[in-house]
């Protein structure tokens, strides 16, 4: 779940500001009448209206109007969104909001996904689940992203919330199949168990067998990231007794033969992750011809297809019956080339989301551009994620996509080489872009045709795409690129920078120019202390700032910490001897109502 589709201002931002407001409105309606009646009516009306208000941004705004609105809003809020688990403590959140049914909690900075944050840094779910076990007995939904979750946490969750319905864990770690078994067996009302890109330990527990035996409420079961085999017979029976199941994403240990058996049980699926899509490891399969095409033909509701972890190309044509209905197709684990993609993609007229590997080459992307006129989101991942490999996709593919898919909102594109011209063309052809993430894998690579820095390309993106909220830059970039971002990127909330810029001015342009900036992550760029000081006016409005391998000094960061008392300034060390340095290798700072956290490991120093 990306926030790029929603609007910003999470709890911490709202919380810090609203606690200072004491403005109060009195009986603004019928001022002639001195009795309490109009106030009571007003409150009832508001309370009922607020029940319909779900957007957290709007709720935060409501809570700022006056004390009575603040009170009513907090009594009626049912979804708690915490964008940074350290911005506010469980106790404080529980004191303000007493009737929470749904929690969204995010932990580690995104660069943790790329091994830049040492293990055991933090973001523990334990204090949250412990506090909520007492405070929110009616909790129904928990969504965690980049949190450390233990089996004990899952055990506590499973036993504390009798009405628990949805558990979604994204990029989490610290738990294993034993924790899953507890959730499966004790959460009798469970509708959703979605495990996405988690690191799940193999405790050799048959968790699939732990679901209630007399039918389940399951609507969504996603476990494609679980790397250990599951008991297939138990899975087949589970699917058979889960009549509400609509979303099923299997892991790579499910063979194509097993997929067939499951599809027969569940023709009502809307979302399917096919597992391995090969017969490897399945002795029963042998040379049998699978009638997979009938299974797909029978899946009339299928709109989202993924998986294909070890794809057996012979069976790829089996998916043709569903292509015309697909709105989302994820081939990002399937090494297929352009010729193999074309017969599939030519049917996918309704496709809105497409994830693919660069093995399809520019030619494959041209085929996508020719058919998928309603494409909103494209992600092209590298088969060989290194800097020296050949370049199967390039500016040619990007240009083709921009010309064919004018409705594009979001793109993530990995390539070895790029040109400014193609990026400029995309900025003009796809003006509705909200997310533009281009990763030229060779560091500091210029436009490979002109030899120029990539400044003009990214400049055009921020200039022409007026709705842009998320940007990731790459390639050779001078401070000019950042001046463009600062000048035109007025809605940019998330910015990722790596190996870019000439000096402090680059960062200053951004900090001084982008009023909506919430999440800034920078690595290996020559920004120093004075650049950091130029953002003092803005840091309290941000979710976080990450800077690693830049040119920051401990003394500079310490001064920031002293000047900004509600900012937590963490210096993260990789090695013990770095403690003697004045240079700061990794800086992570964020506003918080709580001050320095008490669970910081030894390699983190809070200034």
């Amino acid at each position, binding site marked *: 779940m990306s926030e790029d589709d929603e609007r910003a201002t999470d709890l911490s931002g709202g919380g810090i500001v609203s606690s200072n407001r004491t403005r109060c409105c009195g009986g603004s309606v019928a001022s002639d009448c001195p009795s309490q009646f109009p106030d009571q009516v007003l409150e009832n009306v508001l309370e009922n209206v607020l029940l319909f208000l779900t957007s957290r941004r709007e709720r935060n705004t409501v809570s700022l109007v006056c004390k009575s609105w603040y009170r009513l809003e907090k009594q009626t809020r049912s979804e708690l969104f915490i964008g940074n688990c350290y911005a506010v403590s469980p106790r404080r959140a529980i004191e303000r909001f007493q009737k929470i049914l749904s929690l969204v909690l995010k932990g580690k900075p995104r660069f943790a996904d790329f*091994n830049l944050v040492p293990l055991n840094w933090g973001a523990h779910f334990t204090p949250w689940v412990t506090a909520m076990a007492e405070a929110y007995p009616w909790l129904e939904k928990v969504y965690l992203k980049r949190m450390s979750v233990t089996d004990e946490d899952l055990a506590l969750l499973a036993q504390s919330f009798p009405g628990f319905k949805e558990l979604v864990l994204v990029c989490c770690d610290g738990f294993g199949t034993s924790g899953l078994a507890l959730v499966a067996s004790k959460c009798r009302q469970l509708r959703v168990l979605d495990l996405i890109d988690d690191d799940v330990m193999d405790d050799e527990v048959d968790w699939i067998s732990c679901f209630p035996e007399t039918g389940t409420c399951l609507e969504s079961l996603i476990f494609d990231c679980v790397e250990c085999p599951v008991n297939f017979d138990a899975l087949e029976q589970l699917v058979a007794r889960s009549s509400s199941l609509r979303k099923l994403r299997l892991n790579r240990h499910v063979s194509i033969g097993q997929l067939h058996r499951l599809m027969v049980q569940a023709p009502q699926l809307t979302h399917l992750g096919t597992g391995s899509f090969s017969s490897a490891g399945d002795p029963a399969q042998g040379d049998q011809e699978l009638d997979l095409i009938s299974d797909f033909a029978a899946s009339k509701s299928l709109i989202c297809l993924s998986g294909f972890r070890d794809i057996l190309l012979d069976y790829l044509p089996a998916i043709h019956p569903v292509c015309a209905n697909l709105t989302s197709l994820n081939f990002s684990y399937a090494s297929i080339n352009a010729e193999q993609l074309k017969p599939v993609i030519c049917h996918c007229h309704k496709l809105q989301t497409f994830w693919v590997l660069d093995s399809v080459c520019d030619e494959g992307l041209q085929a996508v551009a020719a058919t998928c006129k309603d494409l909103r989101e494209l992600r092209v991942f590298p088969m060989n994620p290194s*800097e020296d490999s050949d370049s199967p996709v390039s500016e040619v593919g990007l240009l083709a996509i921009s010309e064919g898919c004018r409705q594009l909102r979001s793109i993530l594109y990995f390539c070895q080489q790029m040109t400014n011209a193609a990026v400029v063309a995309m900025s003009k052809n796809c003006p509705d872009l909200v997310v533009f993430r281009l990763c030229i894998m060779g560091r500091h690579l210029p436009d490979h045709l002109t030899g120029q820095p990539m400044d003009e390309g990214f400049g055009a993106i921020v200039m022409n795409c007026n709705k842009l909220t998320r940007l990731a830059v790459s390639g050779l970039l001078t401070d000019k690129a950042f001046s463009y971002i600062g000048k035109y990127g007025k809605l940019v909330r998330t910015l990722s920078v790596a190996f870019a810029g000439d000096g402090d001015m680059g960062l200053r342009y951004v900090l001084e120019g982008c009023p909506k900036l919430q999440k800034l992550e920078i690595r290996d760029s020559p920004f120093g202390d004075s650049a950091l000081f130029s953002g003092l006016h803005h840091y309290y409005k941000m979710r976080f700032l990450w800077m690693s391998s830049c*040119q920051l000094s401990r003394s500079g960061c310490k001064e920031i910490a002293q000047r900004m008392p509600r900012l937590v300034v963490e210096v993260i060390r990789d090695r013990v001897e770095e403690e003697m340095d004045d240079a700061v290798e990794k800086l992570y700072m964020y506003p918080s109502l709580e001050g320095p956290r008490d669970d910081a490991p030894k390699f983190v120093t809070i200034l």
Partner: protein
Amino acid sequence: MESTVTYESDLNLKATELRLGLPGTDEYEKQTPPSVRSNKRSLPDIIEESDTGDREAPVTKAQVVGWPPIRSYRKNSFQPKKIEAEATGIYVKVSMDGAPYLRKIDLKVYKGYPELLKALENMFKFTIGEYSDREGYTRSEYALTYEDKDGDWMMVGDVPWDMFMSSCKRLRIMKGSEARGLGCAV
């Protein structure tokens, strides 16, 4: 402030070349500001590219941590069988106290401790000191240490070469009062 450096259309080796030397002895493109007394420059780990024009055996750049930004879960899906040590050699970082840059060496290149020592002495322009049978290395300003798999700092030379190769994670050439009299065990 516009940069006047022209950019070549290829790898721009000049900009990423690492050299060891005293500050001021060579031009740097990016100076660390004087207020930062760092003895380590924050650059990603890069092997120095061989300067020969010979393109028969291109040197592969070492992979930088976390780059390209792909989640390890996704990376592992395609390279589950690749064992890095076999494919690319055993590269370890070498730091020397007081030097602004670290270096990287491939331990596989050396047959034993004497070669390693010689290579390091050449690379960093130092000597490990006089050796006498009675007192070991004396009057040495330097000590050669390494970090092993357990995270402990050990003196180089105590264990057999093969064991050292498999357990050495990084090297550190200590200097100054800490190092005096320690030398190394080779």
